[in-house]
């Protein structure tokens, strides 16, 4: 029997704008009875908007430089740059995550102890904006007018280490809170599904051998310590899906 809800709610890829994503409950308050509802063609698609942007050019350069040090491109394989991590973070900051829409952001704000987690008064996008401004100001002061992106790799590593250890004081923001956030986001961007703009060409998954968005390994359970060799696949497929 067809469902009571004949209207199709299809959110097509790329059509879901950042402003609608996650803010509209899938179905507003309603009663359900008599059946398990089902509607042909309906799927609650991922909140992916890989082309949306938040950063200024200068901010992008800074985030690119930071993430390229966190996950470098080196002899062990591709890094954040090949994976498009900065694109991923830029798009995430333009969406509900960047705006902290699912975080509790009511005041009063005060510095907590480590075990209390994120206590910045800025949602992630604003924290990026403020910290990058403060970080670049700090770098210009300390390194003859060069912003972070123009420092040498070892200078950058030194700053990042001090941020990680809570030893870098920045004006008005916690450098350590920002570091924790950007490291999380860099790893997300390196290993997320490519539909979100990161892990481009599945380079992160290929690096470590993760087969991606698969749903059936029953044929391989008796591997007994031998490697399961499977090409990675994204939610939107892999090259092998297209007849050559």
């Amino acid at each position, binding site marked *: *029997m067809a469902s009571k809800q004949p209207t199709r709610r299809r959110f097509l890829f790329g059509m879901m704008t950042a402003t609608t994503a996650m803010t509209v409950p899938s179905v507003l308050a309603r009663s359900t009875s008599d059946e398990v509802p089902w509607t042909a063609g309906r799927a609650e698609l991922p909140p992916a908007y890989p082309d949306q942007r938040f950063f200024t050019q200068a901010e992008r350069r800074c985030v690119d430089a930071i993430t390229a040090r966190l996950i470098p491109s080196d002899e062990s394989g591709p890094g954040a740059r090949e994976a498009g991590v900065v694109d991923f973070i830029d798009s995430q900051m333009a969406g509900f995550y960047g705006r902290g829409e699912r975080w509790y952001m009511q005041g009063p704000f005060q510095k907590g102890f480590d075990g209390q987690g994120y206590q910045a008064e800025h949602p992630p996008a604003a924290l990026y904006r403020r910290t990058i401004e403060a970080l670049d100001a700090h770098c210009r002061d300390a390194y003859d007018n060069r912003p972070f992106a123009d420092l040498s790799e070892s200078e950058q590593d030194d700053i990042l280490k001090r941020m990680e250890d809570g030893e870098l004081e920045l004006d008005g923001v916690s450098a350590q809170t920002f570091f924790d956030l950007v490291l999380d986001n860099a790893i997300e961007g390196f290993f997320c599904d490519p539909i979100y703009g990161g892990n481009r060409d599945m380079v992160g998954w290929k690096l470590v051998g993760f087969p991606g968005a698969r749903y059936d390994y029953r044929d391989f359970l008796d591997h007994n310590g031998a490697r399961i060799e499977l090409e990675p696949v994204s939610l939107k497929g892999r090259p*092998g899906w297209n007849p050559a």
Partner: protein
Amino acid sequence: MTKTPFAIAATLVLTIAPASSSGHAQENSFAQVERGRYAVATGNCQGCHTIPGEAPFSGGRGLETPFGTIYTPNITFEAETGLGEWSKDDFWQAMHNGVGRDGSHLYPAFPYPHFTKMPRAEVDAIYDYLATIPRVRREKPENDLPFPLNQRMALLGWKWMFFEPGEYQENPDKSPEWNRGAYLVEGPGHCAGCHTPKNLAGADKKDQNLQGGVLENWSAPSIRAGRNGALADWSEDDIVEFLRAGRNRHTAAFSTMAEVIELSTQHMTDRDLRAIAIYLKDREGDGERKEADAPDEVVVTAGEAIYFDNCSACHTSDGSGIPRFFAPLAGSGKVNNEDATTVIRVILEGARSVPTKTHPSPLSMPAFDWKLTDEQIAAVVSYIRSSWGNQAGAVTADQVADLREALKD
């Protein structure tokens, strides 16, 4: 229920009791009404005469035909918009001769070419049962048909060419069970409505009875189960189980057939389902089927990759599925059907196995329309149709694109 101390619980019982408290129902015996209820189930009257989720038998459902949309009337006994003013003779005229109370000819979307096979007593019982249904006021929307099809006189010619009134005649060479099955299939069950191809005038191609048809963007498979029939590998038990439980070792019912099972066949006696099976097992296929073209190697390779990555989690990597849970694709009648509409459509928009009294879980396949391109769907369908012993041949990306377009509301 008497155990509850809460008065409120008692009102619940009342609300689900039949609402009709006067009129026709009182004049009829319980047995007569029950006979009617059963006959209504065999004819699946509720399916077409109800908008899903709304009052049963109140009509208004649009039936899409190649000629336009025809809306079903309200067959509750509400006086102005339903059958309240109809006599038993009026009702018989409609069921047996396809003539309305005002003398107009009825569109054969109302399957009177099949209902005509029902005896008068059975039709009267239906009338008596419908009289007990809670009465609901609902105007029938205007049919959406082009000229001249919107002129009912045009139907006279159609009936003259394609309609032969008359009750079912026993075949003395066959068993009583066979005859009961034939009556149910060709009469009230009106299986041919979907499972028989139509001619240009929308009438059944009699020589291809039950050989499968396409309607409302579904392909209804051939259901001949005798020698060379599409369902030749279904046993009587398989057919009975399918009609009762909505699943069997070969497949699961969804879409239109789901509704038939939900509202009709699961409520029928095993004896009647067995009779249907006996009759279908005696319908031979014509064995005529063009050798299908095998798909290109590159298509098979891509199709296999898509299948393994997307489909194996339910249908398993060797296409054997989990019988009665997730449909087997190897040897599947739906997959091997010459017309691939159903398979393509199920991939595009998903499908739900009908929940039944036997299997309440509405196990469902998700939509892939957002995930796979036309070319990719064509590749995976071609792969499925040419693997594990299936030999139904390739489909093209254009076929997928056309159906995708046709399904847009």
